[in-house]
């Protein structure tokens, strides 16, 4: 019996390269940067799309037209924005701390981009299926507040400092309920790896997604993710009416663009992770195995595998962008909270709820191991 065909780009590519007579080590060396570049490009394109969506949806929410001259429906507007930021003068204030001022935005962006390492678009379609998976993302996202504090401090501006402090306080407070919500999912799937978490939700299509088993966890995670991304209603680190633009006040040109890019990459990443953790990842609402047998095809046939892999990518992106759409709508629906309300909400409401959710998941797992993962 032939081994079932699976979409494994690495094996395919390396096989192709090795036919030219190169050693396996050399083919591995050629392969390594490719998925990273691909994901980097995907992240940047994802940001461009999100910026365009944000402008168009915001305009629709306010009964405006929004960008419409740059390309059809203004689709090239984000590119124009990016180009403008690229050629703008890069100002470092005279009494700012030049070194920390430059390092701050870098420290904000790099962990976010690194976290794309663990986002799966299919069974083998991710950069690295590391065993600690989702824990790596939690650890990396905890580096971000250092960059925010750094840029707030280095700007030598009281609004910047206040913004940086607020961002750090918000980030540490909401990380704990976020981690507890993730822990409940990890407990159900017995693994930290993102691929295993999706596999555990793939039994019965729509019905086996984690959102039905973890409704509270889903809400807690989504609220905390919005707070970590500093999206409204939690955008007080850069609240315009109070702090000018928070820690970004003194930034211009490419350094500002890094903050901008970082916050949108983070939004898309959070949406993707909600998809992976709660909405079945690359899974189609109906099980693809069932669909294939309905059409009289073997699930292991090469053509079917290529089709299901493409369907997986489309489903992941579709679910993530639905969540991004929700985030943009929320921005124009809910007012900004005050800093004391924000901290009260995080520590006195979300944290106990997330803890109870974790305990309830553990109890349900012991009581119904078939449904909640044995």
């Amino acid at each position, binding site marked *: 019996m032939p081994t079932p065909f699976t979409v494994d780009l690495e094996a395919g590519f390396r096989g192709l390269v090795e036919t030219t007579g190169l050693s396996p080590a050399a083919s591995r060396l050629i392969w390594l940067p490719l998925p990273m570049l691909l994901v980097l490009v995907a992240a940047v394109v994802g940001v461009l799309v999100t910026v365009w969506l944000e402008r168009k949806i915001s305009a629709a929410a306010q009964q405006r037209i929004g960008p419409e001259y740059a390309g059809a429906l203004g689709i090239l507007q984000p590119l124009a924005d990016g180009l403008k930021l690229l050629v703008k003068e890069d100002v470092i204030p005279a009494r700012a701390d030049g070194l920390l001022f430059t390092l701050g935005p870098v420290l904000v962006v790099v962990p976010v981009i690194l976290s794309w390492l663990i986002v799966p678009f299919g069974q083998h379609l991710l950069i690295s299926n590391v065993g600690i998976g989702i*824990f790596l993302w939690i650890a*990396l996202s*905890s580096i971000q507040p250092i960059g925010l504090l750094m840029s*707030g401090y280095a700007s030598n501006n*009281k609004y910047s*400092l*206040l913004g940086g*402090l607020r961002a750090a306080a918000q980030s540490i407070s909401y990380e704990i309920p976020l981690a507890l919500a993730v822990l409940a999912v990890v407990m159900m799937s017995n693994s930290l790896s993102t691929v295993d978490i999706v596999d555990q939700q793939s039994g019965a299509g729509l019905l086996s997604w984690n959102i039905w088993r973890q409704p509270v966890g889903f809400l807690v995670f989504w609220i905390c993710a919005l707070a970590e991304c500093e999206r409204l209603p939690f955008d007080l680190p850069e609240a315009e009416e109070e702090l000018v633009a928070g820690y970004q006040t003194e930034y211009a040109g490419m350094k500002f663009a890094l903050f901008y890019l970082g916050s949108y990459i983070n939004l898309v990443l959070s949406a993707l992770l909600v998809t992976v953790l709660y909405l079945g990842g690359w899974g189609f609402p109906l099980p693809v195995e069932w669909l294939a047998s309905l059409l009289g095809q073997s699930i292991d046939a090469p053509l079917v595998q290529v089709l299901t892999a493409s369907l997986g990518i489309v489903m992941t992106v579709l679910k993530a962008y639905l969540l991004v759409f929700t985030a943009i709508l929320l921005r124009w629906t809910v007012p900004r909270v005050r800093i004391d309300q924000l901290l009260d909400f995080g520590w006195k409401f979300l944290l106990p709820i997330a803890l109870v959710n974790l305990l309830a998941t553990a109890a349900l797992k012991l009581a119904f191991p078939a449904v909640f993962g044995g």
Partner: protein
Amino acid sequence: MPSLADLTELIVFVLLAAGVVVGSLGVVLLPNIVYSAFLLGGVFLSVAGLYLLLNASFIAAAQVLIYVGAVNVLILFAIMLVNKREPLADAPGLGLRRLLSSGVCAGLLWLLLRVAYTTPWATPGPTPLGEDAVVRLGEHFFTDYLLPFELASVLLLMAMIGAIVLARRDVFASDIGTGEEADQGLIEKARTPLLIEKSRP
């Protein structure tokens, strides 16, 4: 000739080790406390990198999460809330103090080097567990290391209660810092804002 993987490992190790050594020297020697705190974060990250080199990815991520994400951020937070940029006056007899402390440090270094060179290290050490390490760690925490694990959490709880008592001065009749009558509404009432220069009228 060493293989490509070994060579990469060696280069990464040298870079990380240099990061740890230079970074920790900077933490101790730099006069600006904010730079010291940021460099401390760099040292923690380099140590996490060393754990990664040893195939202990879970420990590395935990190191980043706890030391960089929590400890270092809180240190920075405290420094920036105080935010005093006044230069500190030199303590009397600074030269002698420096001489003494560098003597103590050199002695400690000598001791460590001696231990490192006289201990018969078993090389290569035990094989790394890789991904199974998480499971083994959990087993140890809930079996033979249960008591230290629980004691550590009690210690943290005590520290937390202590911090709350210190921060909420209204639980005392008099202020423990100044000895004045405690103002019961201290938390709600705003104190002098820290960011306004007091010399200004």
